[in-house]
């Protein structure tokens, strides 16, 4: 008999994520209207059968924009996360494991990056590489590195002198293998939380950037940009905020719960 406990987080998170992915995928191929098409009579139209999510101040169909926006947002968030998490992971792991002068120096560098105003960084990137959303995403990714690096480094500090690591060293396991194969799986629980938080922040980062006047994106909608755009009509056209916000929240929620479920699965066996 197989005893497989049902995980609530895994189930709900999985379903939500699947739904949101399906939603996003739909947006790639089909939207009820063109996301940029404007229709004067539909300006400020509240949700209706024709426009389930209503229309914005430019008469664009919010559903279509949300559909497409979810796609951009997902790419942006993933790109930022990949840059930030992968670099942060490697840096944090090496620093935490080896320690020493290099660690101290690199951590100070991380401090420097963390203290560097993100807006300034974005402006520099824009100035150097010209406009383009992926350039700013790169910049955002860099900003995510220090936090990941610190988190991972802390965990590595904790594990690097444990007996099982020592015994791996005695065996002659290579340092890199110790870091990534022996220690890394132990820090998954913390890393998973960090990743879901990172995903969350990545989704929001672009919205904050837009709010501060450094547009990441303009014609092709993203959820963050839509939220920023609807900022001035928060109270008059609430649907322009509610639906993209809901999409973002569900996306983040799904990923978050899924992460929780995965963590639970892995944690459950290691007891």
């Amino acid at each position, binding site marked *: *008999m*197989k*005893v497989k406990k049902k995980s609530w987080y895994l189930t709900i998170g999985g379903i939500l994520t699947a739904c949101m992915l399906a939603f996003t995928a739909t947006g790639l191929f089909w939207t009820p209207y063109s996301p940029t098409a404007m229709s004067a009579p539909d300006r400020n139209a509240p949700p209706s059968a024709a426009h389930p999510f209503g229309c914005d101040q430019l008469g664009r169909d919010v559903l279509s924009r949300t559909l497409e926006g979810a796609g951009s947002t997902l790419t942006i968030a993933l790109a930022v996360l990949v840059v930030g998490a992968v670099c942060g992971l490697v840096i944090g792991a090496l620093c935490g494991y080896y320690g020493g002068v290099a660690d101290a120096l690199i951590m100070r560098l991380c401090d420097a990056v963390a203290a560097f105003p993100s807006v300034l960084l974005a402006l520099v990137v824009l100035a150097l590489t010209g406009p383009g959303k992926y350039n700013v995403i790169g910049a955002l990714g860099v900003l995510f590195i220090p936090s990941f690096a610190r988190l991972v480094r802390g965990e590595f500090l904790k594990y690097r002198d444990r007996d099982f690591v020592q015994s791996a060293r005695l065996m002659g396991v290579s340092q890199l293998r110790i870091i990534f194969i022996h220690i890394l799986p132990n820090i998954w629980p913390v890393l998973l939380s960090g990743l879901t938080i990172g995903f969350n922040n990545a989704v929001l980062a672009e919205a904050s950037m837009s709010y501060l006047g450094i547009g990441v994106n303009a014609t092709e909608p993203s959820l963050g940009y839509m939220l920023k755009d609807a900022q001035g009509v928060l109270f008059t056209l609430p649907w322009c905020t509610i639906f993209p916000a809901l999409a973002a929240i569900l996306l983040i929620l799904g990923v978050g719960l899924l992460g929780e479920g995965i963590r639970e699965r892995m944690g*459950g*066996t290691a*007891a």
Partner: protein
Amino acid sequence: MMLDVQELSVAFTDRQEPFTAVDKFSLQMDRGEIVGIVGESGSGKSMTAHALMGLIPRSRAAVTGRALFEGVDLLPLPREALRQYQGRDLSIIFQEPMTSLNPTMRIGKQVEEALFIHGKLSPGERKAKALAAMELAGLPDPEGLYRQYPHQLSGGMRQRVMIAAALVLRPRLLIADEPTTALDVTIQAQILDTLKDINRQEGTAILFISHDLGVVKALCSRVVVMKQGRIVETGPAEQVFHHPREDYTKLLIASRPSRKKLRGGGEHE
């Protein structure tokens, strides 16, 4: 009767195939009795001990049967009720002193924790009692150790810390899971004397799990022999050691290490 265990079973459910670690374990103990459990490694001795203490999470394993402590079945008790027994009436010395201590809590705090939970002593009184218990467990320089962390201690010292923590509140039933494995013989002898004293003076019943048959023989009045989750033989110590009935028991007794040399594949028996 102090402890009446009836058909206690522990079945792990957290893996693909359910696994019965303890199968219908039954045992009766009176006040002041010392019962030894010996047996194969992996035969379920520790799990029995944990189950009696109510320490096996329901999510991980199914614990069935009855474990009556002075007439109260401990197994179905809710946490709140159970914890009135834990640490006060029942206490346990874990087999793994290395991981069973909180790595970030000072030794002293860990030793006196049961006092903190179950009593209303002042910090000073608690410390005095803790130091006394540490002394009793044969720890050198308790004052110095009081402020240390577990990782700064040797294996044997940690084991004695566990013992001190279990004894600090003078439980009525002490479950000791291989309490002396990491101790050198002189200290082992001292600890065994301490256990005997407590048993004699305060009537503490002791469930003593060990591989060391010599120790069991010296300490226990009754012995339970376990193999693969089941009790294979039980009876007064004298009888079990001198007139074992089961083959496994005989094997155990025969395998006791002695001053015999193991040379070049030389057969042991």
